């Protein structure tokens, strides 16, 4: 008898919490972790901004392994979270299967491509932002050799590298771009030791500006570059402050804005493809007091001119993911 009562009580409590949580949005961070100082942290900042402005609360989950993806999505959907935002291309396949099971829940995926009626696909034009920092790298480089360290070797990261190389070549057609990837598994997002070793190896080959698009691994790259006395370029979040005066700039990818907008739209989230490009302020490069001495007025003017051309469509940066080739760099 008392057992039944307990069960009933538990069920009632469950129903109650589910009812209360109905309007809460949720965010799932990818394997790099919430505090990777980069991609996921940008998403976290966007969610925090929404929470501070609206006073609302949100649910969050951090992935610990590949196997948790589907479980995490279903758990949040069943708990009544809406919309559910996830960061990272790796959610693509899983979301494609899960989304039809919860037609009343809105999902938003950053970097992935999912065609479902209740999913918003948020894509960034990273090649455009990378093109701009590539120009800065080429102008700041004295040796004519610059480096690129990618995280996991996926087309998305190659898009960063390809845009970067095009920017470099636009300024200095004879420049050499050394491109390395950290690995082929998700562990490549979190291996600063290897990132540092890659940066040292690139420096040994003559590179004096290194662009890291590698999540947590990038911290090792920036550290090694600062130790070796060369410049580095951060990614996703503004990373200029990590080593003031040693980080040339950061390629900004406003994941925070994407998450903020999605949270703000709430259950009325518009689905479909949502492109955040240079023109709409989705990507760009970071200037603040930490890197002001490194970027001269001429450099900034050149980059701003190019940015205006890209925004107006006069200059088209080749997108690696459109045809899986890169005119400026071979991977």
């Amino acid at each position: 008898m008392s057992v039944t009562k307990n069960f009933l009580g538990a069920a009632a409590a469950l129903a109650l919490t589910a009812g209360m949580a109905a309007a809460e949005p949720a965010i799932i961070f990818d394997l790099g972790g919430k505090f990777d100082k980069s991609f996921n942290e940008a998403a976290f900042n966007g969610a925090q901004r929404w929470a501070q402005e609206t006073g609302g609360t949100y649910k969050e989950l951090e992935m610990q392994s590949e196997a948790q993806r589907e479980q995490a999505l279903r758990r949040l959907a069943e708990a009544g979270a809406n919309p559910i935002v996830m960061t990272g291309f790796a959610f693509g396949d899983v979301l494609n299967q899960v989304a039809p099971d919860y037609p009343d829940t809105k999902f938003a995926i950053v970097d992935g491509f999912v065609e479902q009626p209740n999913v918003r696909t948020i894509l960034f034009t990273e090649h455009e932002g990378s093109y701009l920092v590539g120009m800065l790298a080429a102008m700041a480089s004295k040796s004519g050799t610059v480096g690129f360290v990618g995280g996991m070797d996926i087309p998305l990261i190659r898009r960063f590298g390809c845009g970067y190389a095009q920017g470099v070549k636009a300024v200095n057609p004879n420049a050499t771009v050394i491109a390395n990837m950290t690995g082929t598994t998700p562990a490549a997002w979190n291996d600063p030791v290897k990132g540092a070793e890659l940066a040292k190896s690139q420096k040994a080959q003559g590179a004096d500006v290194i662009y890291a698009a590698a999540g947590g691994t990038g911290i090792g790259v920036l550290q090694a570059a600062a130790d070796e006395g060369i410049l580095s370029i951060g990614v996703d979040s503004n990373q200029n402050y990590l080593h003031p005066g040693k980080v040339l700039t950061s390629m900004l990818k406003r994941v925070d804005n994407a998450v903020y907008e999605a949270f703000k739209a709430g259950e009325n989230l518009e689905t479909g493809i949502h492109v955040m490009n240079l023109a709409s302020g989705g990507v760009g490069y970071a200037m603040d007091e930490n890197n002001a001495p490194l970027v001269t007025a001429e450099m900034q003017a050149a980059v701003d001119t190019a940015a205006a051309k890209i925004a107006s469509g006069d200059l088209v940066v080749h997108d690696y993911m459109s045809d899986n080739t890169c005119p400026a760099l071979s991977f």
Partner: protein
Amino acid sequence: MDFATLLQLLDSTLRLATPLLLACLAGLYSERAGIFDIGLEGKMLAAAFTAAAVAALTGNVWLGLAAGILASAGMAAIHALASITFRGNQLISGVAINFLAAGMTVLVGQNLFALGGRTPQLAGGGRFAPITLPGAEALSAVPLLGPLYAEVISGHTILVYIALAAVPLTWWLLYRTRFGLRLRAVGENPAAVDTAGVSVVGLRFVAVLICGVLCGIAGAYLATALSAGFVKDMTAGRGFIALAALIFAKWRPVQALGACLLFGFLETVAIRYQNVDLGGVVVPVQVMQALPYILTVVILAGFVGKAIPPRAGGEPYVKER
């Protein structure tokens, strides 16, 4: 490939081989005493975190190193307690150490620093600085040997030299001292050691604690010398590569040095040469990155010959049945 590139490769090899070497020697002490240890990875991880956390809080890397060694030795003591005193399964205890370290480091790190299990970036006195050996500048003009000395041998952190010094020291300790003889004996035939009136449990405890100390140095090296701070799971399988090197070296210290340098060199090559163009055929980066692991399998399966572990390895010692 020119001489300068070769020097850079060797320099990088030495840097990357050091954590492997320390962990490998750590495993050597433990396994020679008859205690299998697959918890090298976990002990390194715990030490890396503690070293980075203490160095970040105090700004003193030597305190960090000491704390890292303590943490790792603490983990080793748990392993010793479970597998020697309570005669538990050594493999299971080792796995438990790995999980414990992976979880605890992130949990404590998050509570201390609220950076998602990461420690703050270390700077200045919080890190080990490279040391230029005496005469490196003067000798660099000497052809061949000069640059080799200046580029490859000089300019590492103190922990690299400690690791290298640990190799002859281990050899001397194992093969030239009474303690070493007893240590090897307790891994082969503990009953004989017991009959001679020497404490099997005591010897094994000492061996496992030495293992903990060496793993502690390896972890501290990862977090405070190779990089500047702790990141979750930063050991990235190096403890297991060290175990493979230990088997490859057939549980002998000098050969362990060779094996670790080989694995370090393979990792370096994979980092430096990502796409190798062999006259028309391009070897893709994935193959280069898998190379260390493929070679590990090939070496262990084919070239090492018969690797016979210490006879009493994995068996808890029971005085009388």
